[in-house]
């Protein structure tokens, strides 16, 4: 193997670094699935307790779920809140970025489903 890394490898690594500047564009597929699951649960029940989420086997093992939540937290999509009554209970809450992401998705879907002009 050549000791000089090929240009396309350096190019792809530079593109990955540039992608990090756009938070929505930098979500991995697993993070996107996790975020979609959270969006559904926020819609159904409001606040999501972290303990309830960790028991959701369909989303993966507890460590996997926690890792993805931490990643979403680092990228600014979720924050962890604490219950006022019991500080041991932590909630997963949407940030403004997550709300903006949901609104953007809604706008795109609305645009897709709007009736076409008739001739």
């Amino acid at each position, binding site marked *: 193997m050549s000791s*000089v*890394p090929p*240009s396309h*490898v*350096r*190019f792809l*690594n*530079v*593109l*990955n*670094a*540039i*992608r*990090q*500047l*756009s938070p*929505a*564009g930098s979500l991995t597929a697993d993070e996107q699935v996790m975020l979609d699951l959270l969006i559904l649960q926020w819609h159904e029940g409001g606040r999501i307790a972290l303990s309830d989420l960790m028991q959701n086997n369909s989303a993966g093992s507890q460590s996997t779920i926690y890792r993805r939540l931490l990643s979403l937290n680092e990228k600014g999509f979720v924050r962890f809140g604490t219950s006022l009554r019991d500080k041991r209970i932590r909630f997963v809450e949407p940030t403004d970025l997550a709300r903006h992401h949901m609104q953007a998705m809604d706008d*795109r879907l609305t645009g897709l489903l709007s009736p076409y002009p008739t001739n």
Partner: protein
Amino acid sequence: MIRPLQHSIYWFLKATVLGAVWAGLFRINAALFKEFAVSDHASWIFLPAALRVLMPLVFRSSGVGGLILGSLFITPPLPGNVVAPLLFAIASGLAPVIGIAICQRIFRLAPDLAGLSAVHLSGLSILCALSNSLCVNFVLFLTHQPSRGALNAVTVFVGDVTGTAMVIYAIAGLLTWTAKMRAS
């Protein structure tokens, strides 16, 4: 015997194309932001500065060659004015080499740029802008051209950082948009 020659020709062609891209963006910048130009060598917004970071980073020596050729495409050496264009061309290629070398020391960047992050890109753009600002003003000093001192240096630095940020954020937006188009 033939392989090194082919390699050299390929290197030169790559550098020429990169130089042409740099010169093209220089012309676009001059047309779009002529109000922001302080002198022939300083502007408050300088889009080609992004290529000064990205070309050597991705293409290494041919990227540096492209910057030198690009500078010569813009200001070719002519009878009666040979030294200044050559020095500016060399400075154009050398400045990012210095900036990238310092960043590689500070951030311990891998040769294939694995793990390169947005923070590293910010550091690279600032250090390349700083080294370019110093190199340009040094060449102005060597060639006895009026430099306006600190104003020129600050303008070049700010122009390079601003131009690099604009181009990189535009690329980030384009990448996000194309990803969303593919997903929908």
